[in-house]
């Protein structure tokens, strides 16, 4: 079995994994980081989005071995202790969630987007979130949250 070393939320971890282990399995099953969710298993819904070297990717269709040597950030690694990340705070404040199952992936996608789009239009936000499905909210408050979170991150 291959050995991978991945820096997850700032801590380097080394584990032996089966070659076919998905990154999301590695996070959820090996590291008990269950904030990253599985919604569709097939790279469609975005519930499993995490950052690999700062870039948002779908961890249900990435192998753990592909992340070997990388830095991975999950939803659990976003807040600074008790202080929420501005994007997390925006989702809470603007009611950008209902059942909350899509929320971790939404936030991780949004944070990556906000880093590269300091002053986005609403249309750009909508386009950036096309790969993240939410079945509950109708997206209205999610878009508001991402706009506010982006402003707060870049403010």
């Amino acid at each position, binding site marked *: 079995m291959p050995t991978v070393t991945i820096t997850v939320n700032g801590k380097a971890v080394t584990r032996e994994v089966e070659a076919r282990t998905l990154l999301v399995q590695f996070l959820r099953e090996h590291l008990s980081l269950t904030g990253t969710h599985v919604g569709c298993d097939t790279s469609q819904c975005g519930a499993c989005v995490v950052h690999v070297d700062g870039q948002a990717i779908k961890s249900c269709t990435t192998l753990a071995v592909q992340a070997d040597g990388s830095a991975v950030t999950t939803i659990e690694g976003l807040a600074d202790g008790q202080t929420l990340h501005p994007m997390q705070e925006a989702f809470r404040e603007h009611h950008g969630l209902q*059942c*909350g199952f899509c929320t971790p992936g939404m936030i991780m996608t949004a944070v990556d987007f906000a880093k590269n789009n300091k002053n986005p239009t609403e249309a750009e936000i909508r386009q950036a979130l*096309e790969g993240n499905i939410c079945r509950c909210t109708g997206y209205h408050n999610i878009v508001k949250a991402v706009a506010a979170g982006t402003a707060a991150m870049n403010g």
Partner: protein
Amino acid sequence: MNAELPIRPGPARGQVRESRPHDSAIKQVTGRAFYTDDIVEPAGTLEAYVAQSTEAHARITRLDVAAVRTAPGVRAVLTAADVPGVNNVGPVLADDPIFAEGLVEYVGQSLFAVIADDVRAARAAARLAVVEYEPLPALITVEAALAAGSYVLPSVTMRRGDAATAIAGAPHRLAGRLEIGGQDHFYLEGQISLALPGEDGDVTVVCSTQHPSEVQHLVAHALHVPVAAVTVEVRRMGGGFGGKETQASLFAAIAAIGARVTGRPIKLRLDRDDDMVMTGKRHDFLATWDVGFDGEGRLHGLKAMLAARCGYSADLSAAICDRALFHLDNAYYIPAVEAVSHRCKTHTVSNTAFRGFGGPQGMMVIERILDDVARHLRLDPLEVRRRNLYGDAGRDVTPYGMTVEDNVMPQLIAELVESSGYQARREAVAAFNAANPILKKGLALTPVKFGISFTTTHLNQAGALIHLYQDGSVHLNHGGTEMGQGLFTKVAQVVATEFGIDVDHVKITATTTAKVPNTSATAASSGSDMNGKAAQAAAQTLKARLAEVAAAEFGCRPEDVAFADNRVSGGDRSLGFAEVVTKAYFARVSLSSTGYYRTPKIHFDKDSFTGRPFYYFAYGAAVAEVTIDTLTGEYRLDRADILHDCGASLNPAIDRGQVEGGFIQGMGWLTSEELVFDGRGRLRTHAPSTYKIPACGDVPAEFHVTLLRDNPNTEPTIHRSKAVGEPPLMLGISVFAALRDAVAATYDDPAALPALDAPATPERVLAAIAP
């Protein structure tokens, strides 16, 4: 939770009417809200996979699982013979086998389950089974079932007056036909159960379900143990929408049987494709009608046939098809009605509850009829809709005999027409269409009047349990389940308001059959209405006890004791809430109480199909504007304006969220979400790659949602609020009506009635435009 909070002086936070964020919001944005799959598994947990039928209708001539049993990692194989009790999880009729016995009736039906070290091993092993079938004729569509006279339940007729005579005597007459597609729930969290074996054959099932009590009962029957030996628990679901009402039982039962057989905890989580294939959906309907009306567009009589694809078993189809009849009038007075509902048996998955529960399909029919009437008479459909609304005495009784007592619809529509600028936009749309040969716009306003209550009367009851601890902290439990709709937040606000304390001090706890028994499903939009009232009753009992204690302390009468601002006061004295609770403990006063509620006034006679099935109605209306591309059939929702009635809202932010989400979900049902079964009964759209859920870009850039103001419920519901879970879904009908309006603009004849079935996919829109 903070033990100091109750003695924090000042106005209590999080009372009713306040727009509190969802109670779990902080946990959800940090990834620390645990869904069933996130619970730390006990050592030795095994995983299950369910093997499925590949045939729609066949006799099983051979089922050989010998090779499965010896595959790597496999710990057990469960077949019908391994079910200790009843091999059935049918919620109403005993017609849903846990494992098929000799016969399969849909593609995806459970054949056997494999328990292995992990689900990957279980899935791989399941492939080693030898299954042989002798195919039988399969009925896949509603039309095939109708032709064969194949029903899961007897047909039902709703009748008032003499529809045939009324139609014959009317100045105008039209006949029509509409197909209305089904819908997959696509809750982001799929079906999942974790069964934990206990002593004496007991089992606890942590299950993503809207109906823990029913899961409990069905698991007990399957295990052949008393109901008291089974505990079902759910803290939260990642969405439900009706899909986790009856559909969770099969997976809970299989996990529980696995736990019994192996003595180990069993997790059963469906992957998305299996979930979409194996679980029931919204019923698709075929409707035909004959309607008589006058030159003003007022209806005189309606004969209608509603046929639903129920799938292979009854499930909740009786109540769902009844609700379609109850909403065939929507907001309109129809003097004479004869509507028959056929509950068709097909060899497809058994369709089930889905937000609206048949109501949306009934409404679609009458909205299409009024659209036809208006177009036939060359009138604006909105004008015809308004002329047919329920009105004063003589025009205020539904076809099933219930009086519409608080008919706010005329006023609500007037407000929305004004705020949305409907009239000016109607003209702008006409001008746009005259000037543009390729792009066409459509505009429509449709209303929603939705009946609130379970139409099965005995289900309208709820229980709650509140404990006070010596430090003044409050433990709240009730029979409702949290699926994202904000029920737990609202009920906690109700309890905080009753005690006059900060809501943060009310500990919200997982729904469990061990605390509140014999509950009804969290469904029919009734969660806050019923559980809010039950929790309020429990809180009031405790308050009365605390008031006695405080009155003795203060030297005043108990009725003069007030609970506010995190304090308890009487006369000129006051104490912190926690202090009074502590005093009550030392005075040997019980600090725990149940609360109970049953909805008043409702009754219904199934034989005559008359009564008052609903406690009250919730109202709303939406205006949608769309643009279609007549070369491709593609379209865009340009703008939506909604005015919705939540009574006096318990939490306006949460209610708005329900309205926004419901509208988009309704729009998805009628536009992009298409379930395609092939001739062999196989679902070809079993993943989001082929089944199109609305995405962020499908939401209109201009989206105005307003809650109707100053309209407290006329019935004494919890703080005069109204249910909001389901009704907004049907606001999505405005999008469908607007699309047809745009399609109609492609015809030279303004009286053309374009045939457009739901969902109005771009392909269907393209096919419907003028040749």
